[in-house]
């Protein structure tokens, strides 16, 4: 769409490194040596436990050796004790390492959640990867396949083919929740898609899988390679924006025009309204939009809301319009009535709309013009201008209005019947 501020800054900082400060390691090393470095308490604990363990085991062995001494030959006592003390030290060493493992296990257990969480978060942090679109990915894989085809016969005779065996990891741009990801694995090894929750989906070698992206967060696509390099790529899946659409139940004629107003409730700023055949009355990017319904029928009003991550959701509401718009004209009037609302004829919408117009009343018998006006404050009072007399009762006349500036997609000529009662 446009190069917005986030893209601008993101691309500016991509791969950027600050220069190495020669003193940085020295000053860090000092901090690392400080006793309050977080590694220390663990070490003390471990050290203390080891000492206790050594003492306990030493004393156990000491007592047991004493028992042996009692029953065995007294002459060899000395060497035996020396041997025992040797074995004592080896045993204690062994125990020490066992304890060490135990402690580490303990730490692992107690921190397992943390570690897992870190793993999980880690997948989220891997940033700014080169984004290649899927079409490009297909091309790359196609190329690779082509290479393989060429080099396969060589394989038996030469070593050069190794170069081609480098796995190809498709890169994906960021996706939206619920989308399907098509992974084409052209490699000799299987691939694994790791979901943010840790769930794994495998794509067998030379297979294609459609995987539904049912979780929000960072995904990692990994080639199950035995080589020393890690062949992986990352992409993120973002939630779709929430939107709720409210639409008027009936037409609103406040401006003399047949308007239905839609309002979308959402946090997002990118809004698109869509409706067939109907013209939007105002900016179609706003959270509220108005539409003119000049013709009867059934319509579907759709609003699409997109967030900054390019994910969108849409809501559709059906709208039924019962009759065509006809300038809100009545079909009967009574020139002799005292009621000023019904003793003249002028299509009501013309009093509200900002459009110049011409109204004519036609005698259907001969096509003669009975009345003319282009001013809504001068309605027809039932007088036939040809003879200056009130027209006949119960006779149907035709009215015709031509609008000088109709709305977009609105017809300019309206017609109808009017009867004097």
């Amino acid at each position, binding site marked *: 769409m*446009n*190069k*917005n*501020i*986030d893209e*601008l*800054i*993101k*691309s*500016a*900082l991509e791969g*950027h*490194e*600050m*220069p*190495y*400060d020669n003193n*940085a*390691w020295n*000053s*860090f*090393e000092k*901090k*690392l040596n400080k006793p309050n*470095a*977080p*590694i220390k308490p663990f070490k003390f604990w471990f050290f203390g436990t080891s000492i206790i363990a050594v003492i306990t085991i030493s004393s156990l062995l000491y007592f047991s050796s004493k028992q042996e001494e009692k029953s065995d030959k007294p002459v060899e006592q000395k060497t035996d004790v020396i041997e025992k003390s040797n074995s004592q030290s080896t045993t204690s060493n062994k125990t020490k390492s066992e304890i060490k493992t135990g402690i*580490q296990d303990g730490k*692992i257990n107690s*921190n397992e959640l943390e570690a897992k969480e*870190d*793993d999980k*978060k*880690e*997948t*989220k*942090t*891997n*940033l*700014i990867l080169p984004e290649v679109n899927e079409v490009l990915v297909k091309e790359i894989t196609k190329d690779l396949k082509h290479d393989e085809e060429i080099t396969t016969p060589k394989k038996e005779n030469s070593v050069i083919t190794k170069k081609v065996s480098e796995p190809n990891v498709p890169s994906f741009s*960021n996706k939206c929740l619920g989308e399907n990801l098509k992974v084409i694995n052209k490699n000799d090894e299987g691939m694994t898609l*790791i979901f943010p929750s840790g769930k794994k989906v495998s794509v067998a070698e030379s297979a294609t899988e459609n995987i539904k992206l049912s979780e*929000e*967060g*960072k995904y*990692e696509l*990994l080639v199950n390679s035995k080589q*020393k*390099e*890690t*062949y*992986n790529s*990352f992409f*993120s899946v*973002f*939630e779709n924006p929430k939107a709720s659409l409210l639409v008027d139940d009936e037409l609103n004629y406040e401006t003399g025009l047949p308007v239905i107003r839609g309002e979308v409730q959402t*946090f997002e*700023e990118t809004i698109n309204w869509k409706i067939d055949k109907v013209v939007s009355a105002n900016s179609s990017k706003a959270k509220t939009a108005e539409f003119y319904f000049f013709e009867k029928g059934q319509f579907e009003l759709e609003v699409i809301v997109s967030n*900054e*991550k390019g994910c969108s959701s849409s809501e559709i509401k059906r709208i039924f319009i019962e009759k065509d718009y006809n300038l809100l004209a009545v079909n009967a009037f009574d020139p002799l009535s005292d009621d000023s609302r019904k003793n003249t004829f002028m299509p009501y919408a013309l009093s509200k709309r900002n459009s110049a117009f011409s109204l004519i009343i036609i005698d259907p018998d001969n096509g003669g013009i009975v009345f003319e006006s282009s001013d809504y404050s001068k309605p027809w009072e039932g007088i036939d201008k040809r003879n200056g007399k009130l027209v006949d009762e119960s006779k149907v006349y035709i009215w015709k209005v031509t609008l000088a500036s109709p709305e977009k997609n609105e017809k300019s000529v309206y017609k109808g019947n009017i009867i004097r009662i």
Partner: protein
Amino acid sequence: MENKEHLKLIVEGCVRGERKSQEALFKQLYGKMLVVCYRYINDKDAAQDVLQDGFIKVFDKLGFFDFSGSFEGWVRRIIVNTAIDSIRKSKKNPFLSDQDTDFKQEAVDEMVEKEVLEFKSLKAEVALEAISKLSPAYRTVFNLFVLEDFSHREIAEMLGINEGTSKSNLAKAKMNLRRILTEKFKYIES
């Protein structure tokens, strides 16, 4: 892509507490991670401190890294968390709303937006400087959303704010960045 074996050697050395390995790892990641810190903390010394604290955590947790994912990403995550913790400690509710009155402006100026859109690219230093001028609340959300690719829901959870605040802070951050950059470029031109 990282050379797994080489990295494994360094990491294993670090786990054994070997200074040489620790130094190698520190130097390898220093430049990139300092950029990360500097994006969150605009004071150079404070950013260095956070980097050091972050590295201590990295060395402490290194034994748990299982080489299944990106190592740099794993380190970055720890550094980002350390930076956020440090901001959190420095003020009571730094993420709740804007603390910096200099950049309070209600409406987005369309002219400003247009002017910035004309820039095709930006130097990293200029981008960093612009980010550093944002208040902590705006800067953090901008970093997490735009540069770390977190969603508003995740940011809200991380910072203990609600999604609406995250969204509005992001909008204001962008608005201020536009203004900061436009002013900067105006100054250069004149």
